[in-house]
């Protein structure tokens, strides 16, 4: 059986090792996405709506953080969680939790920056109406987040795409331990270097499918938004 055929066989036969890796990858990336959303959406909305000294500098930094190389984030989290680091006592290095922390740090700026831009644009449009309707700050923020919900879903999916596809940060802080911290991307890197291309290609197929599905979801969210909200 050639490499491609055996890769396809691994995927279609539901190979337990392969799908354990897929499951861990999804758990890590989705958990990181949830934390990043909890941090990023309110932070982005606050940055869009509250004026304070240094706000523009924070926006520039936030936009720059969107392009932060994953290996740099991995290194920073590694130093933070290593035995001699400030959070070394937590014993999180080389665990899925460490990978979640790294991916959260990577994805939160993306969600915050996209939320900030979306909410700021919507605020410019809604400002007169909401002020005239005497809508208070809390209701105002909730209204803007709700009305931007379809754009925010796209932001979340962009964040998830980045988390699911990255390898640099999680290989540093997770260590790529078989059955414990091995994810799709780290496994692909390892298996390719070992010359076991079947598993690497099989995981690549699954990862590619997930990324295509994410983009299809983003597209559908936008279309649904246009249909339901105009």
């Amino acid at each position, binding site marked *: 059986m050639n490499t491609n055929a055996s890769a396809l066989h691994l995927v279609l036969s539901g190979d337990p090792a392969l799908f354990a890796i897929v499951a861990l990858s999804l758990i890590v990336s989705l958990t990181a996405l949830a934390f990043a959303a909890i941090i990023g959406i309110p932070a982005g909305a606050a940055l869009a709506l509250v004026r304070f000294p240094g706000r523009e500098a924070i926006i520039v930094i936030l936009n720059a953080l969107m392009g932060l190389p994953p290996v740099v984030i991995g290194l920073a989290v590694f130093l933070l969680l290593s035995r001699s680091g400030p959070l070394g006592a937590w014993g999180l290095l080389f665990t899925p939790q460490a990978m979640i922390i790294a991916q959260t740090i990577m994805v939160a700026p993306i969600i915050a920056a996209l939320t900030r831009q979306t909410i700021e644009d919507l605020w410019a449009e809604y400002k*007169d109406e909401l*002020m005239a309707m005497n809508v208070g700050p809390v209701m105002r923020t909730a*209204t803007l987040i709700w009305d*931007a919900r379809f754009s925010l879903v796209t932001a979340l999916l962009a964040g998830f795409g980045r988390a699911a596809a990255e390898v640099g940060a999680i290989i540093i802080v997770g260590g790529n331990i078989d059955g414990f911290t091995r994810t799709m991307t780290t496994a692909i890197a390892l298996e390719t270097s070992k010359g076991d291309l079947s598993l690497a290609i099989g995981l690549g197929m699954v990862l590619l499918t997930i990324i295509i599905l994410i983009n299809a979801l983003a597209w559908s969210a936008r279309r649904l938004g246009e249909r339901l*909200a105009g």
Partner: protein
Amino acid sequence: MSMRAPPSELPVQLDDVSVRVGPLALIDGVSMHISPGAPTVLIGPNGAGKTTLLRVVMGLIAPSQGRMTWAGREQAPPERRAIVFQRPVMLRRSTAANVRFGLAKAGRAQRHERVAELLDLVGLSGLERRPARRLSGGEQQRLALARALARDPDLLLLDEPTASLDPAATKAIEDIVRAVSARGVKVVMSTHDLGQARRVGGDVALLHRGRLIEHGDAAEFFASPQAEETKRFIAGELLV
């Protein structure tokens, strides 16, 4: 504990009110009394200050100079006043949800009934589930009116509500203005359509370059204008 209705906003009194942006006076020493009754119509050419005056009366712009009161109160949050802007923004929601948004303080049980009643008033029954942004320009104006009325105002400000609408849509808006006025809501609207001012206005005020040129009962305003600018404007001359 009893729920007390917010106090009335009327009468509105402006004493020597000016709004300045740098050296430019958008409103220049306007004194005006807005009392309950038939609609007050603000007329004047573009840039006369109609929109700015409506925003001042709404409380969205603070006067740079002068005093203004709502039922004698100088500081009054807009509890019973509402405004429909010339280009109202539709929330990214359904038609019914846009009206419901204005009913934030009503109980859940009352909302459904009030939404249906208001959409019926503005002739949008049957379009409840349509995204508001998919409505036509005239329908959006009527929806904005329904949303403003959802706040149960006793002072309703309309900024050029029929600008860029066709005659049928214009008539629909004017009919709503009359219906709302008949229910006791004080309407103050701006227009540069003299015909509309005659059809709708109980009293008419001419603004030019930020100044209030003349303000009086509509019949007298058109039959025997006092100011030179009013005579020229009614005669169809261009005020520049």
